[in-house]
């Protein structure tokens, strides 16, 4: 009898957890839509852009693989205090980023982050890249394919270095999933078919892309 009751309790607990786990991202999705986030960010993959005009028509980055790209603690905190990631406004080479992204209350940010973190891509293999300051990655980043030409990155003594057209790589350690950085370099068109950054796959070796991904993933 006791065993039967125990089994019943465990089963009930399992189902209640499953329902809760399934419900939470759905609640976040409702909030995402009711806050109007969908008007700038699409969340259903795969990537839709086929032309430059398609890319330029977007008001903000696509989020259909947000759960593979971001780190949950960073995303939850950022939604409550959204500091610009790009120096320039999205899709602009002229206007400064106005820094006017909507700010969310902690509870809403947490639920929306939960929804966004549920959006993952099968093209991001887990556990491949470990953030690491490595000479090969540094050489590629600084000399071979100078990523700093377009991306801001941390220089010496806290100086912010680099170009303006790409998203900043400052705090990549907290913001980005290291495995996503590599997956994006390896197969960029899966995530961003039309983008201002050159395709390096087929130019850099996979080993080089792993090194530079690990290097970028270590940026504070």
């Amino acid at each position, binding site marked *: 009898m006791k065993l039967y009751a125990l089994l019943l309790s465990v089963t009930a607990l399992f189902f209640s957890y499953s329902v809760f786990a399934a419900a939470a991202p759905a609640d976040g999705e409702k909030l995402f839509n009711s806050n109007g986030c969908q008007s700038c960010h699409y969340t259903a993959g795969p990537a839709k852009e*086929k*032309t*430059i*005009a398609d*890319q*330029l028509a977007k008001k903000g980055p696509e989020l259909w693989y947000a759960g593979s790209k971001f780190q949950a603690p960073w995303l939850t905190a950022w939604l409550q205090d959204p500091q610009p990631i790009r120096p*320039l406004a999205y899709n602009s*080479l*002229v206007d400064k980023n106005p820094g006017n992204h909507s700010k969310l209350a902690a509870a809403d940010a947490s639920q929306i982050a939960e929804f966004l973190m549920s959006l993952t891509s099968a093209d991001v293999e887990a556990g491949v890249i470990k953030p690491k300051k490595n000479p090969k990655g540094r050489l590629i980043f600084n*000399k*071979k*394919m*100078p990523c*700093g*030409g*377009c991306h801001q990155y941390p220089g010496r003594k806290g100086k912010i*270095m*680099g*170009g*303006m*057209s790409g998203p900043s790589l400052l705090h990549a350690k907290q913001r980005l999933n290291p495995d996503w950085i590599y997956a994006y370099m390896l197969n960029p068109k899966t995530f961003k078919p039309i983008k*201002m950054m*050159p*395709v*390096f*796959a*087929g*130019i850099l070796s996979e080993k080089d892309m792993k090194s530079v991904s690990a290097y970028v993933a270590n940026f504070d």
Partner: protein
Amino acid sequence: MFKSRFISILLVFFFSTSPSFAASDSTKQVFKFYCAQCHGDTGTGDGVNVTEDFATEPRNFTSGKEMSKLSDADIKNVIMDGGPSASKSALMPPWGKTLTDAQADELVAYLRELCNCKGAE
């Protein structure tokens, strides 16, 4: 006569419905999207990435004097394989896996319009 007209109609239909043609971007648009970030909107070499950290001066495409020193093949080579392929800065990345061969040719022609010059033989 009828046969050749029929083939022409078929060709027009094929090319107008082919996604690669329907989805093509204009050369000016390609320039503004990929090249302007460093070379500037009008090609004068003053793109938004040219900060104090930028270790070279991007090519000013409106300079007939400088651009006429380069052949069309030189320019296409740098576009596709990057600056180091012509002993220039690595800040000019290789676009060979991003742009099509035809887009690179069109860009070369566009740069010739900007410099209003012909290339070295």
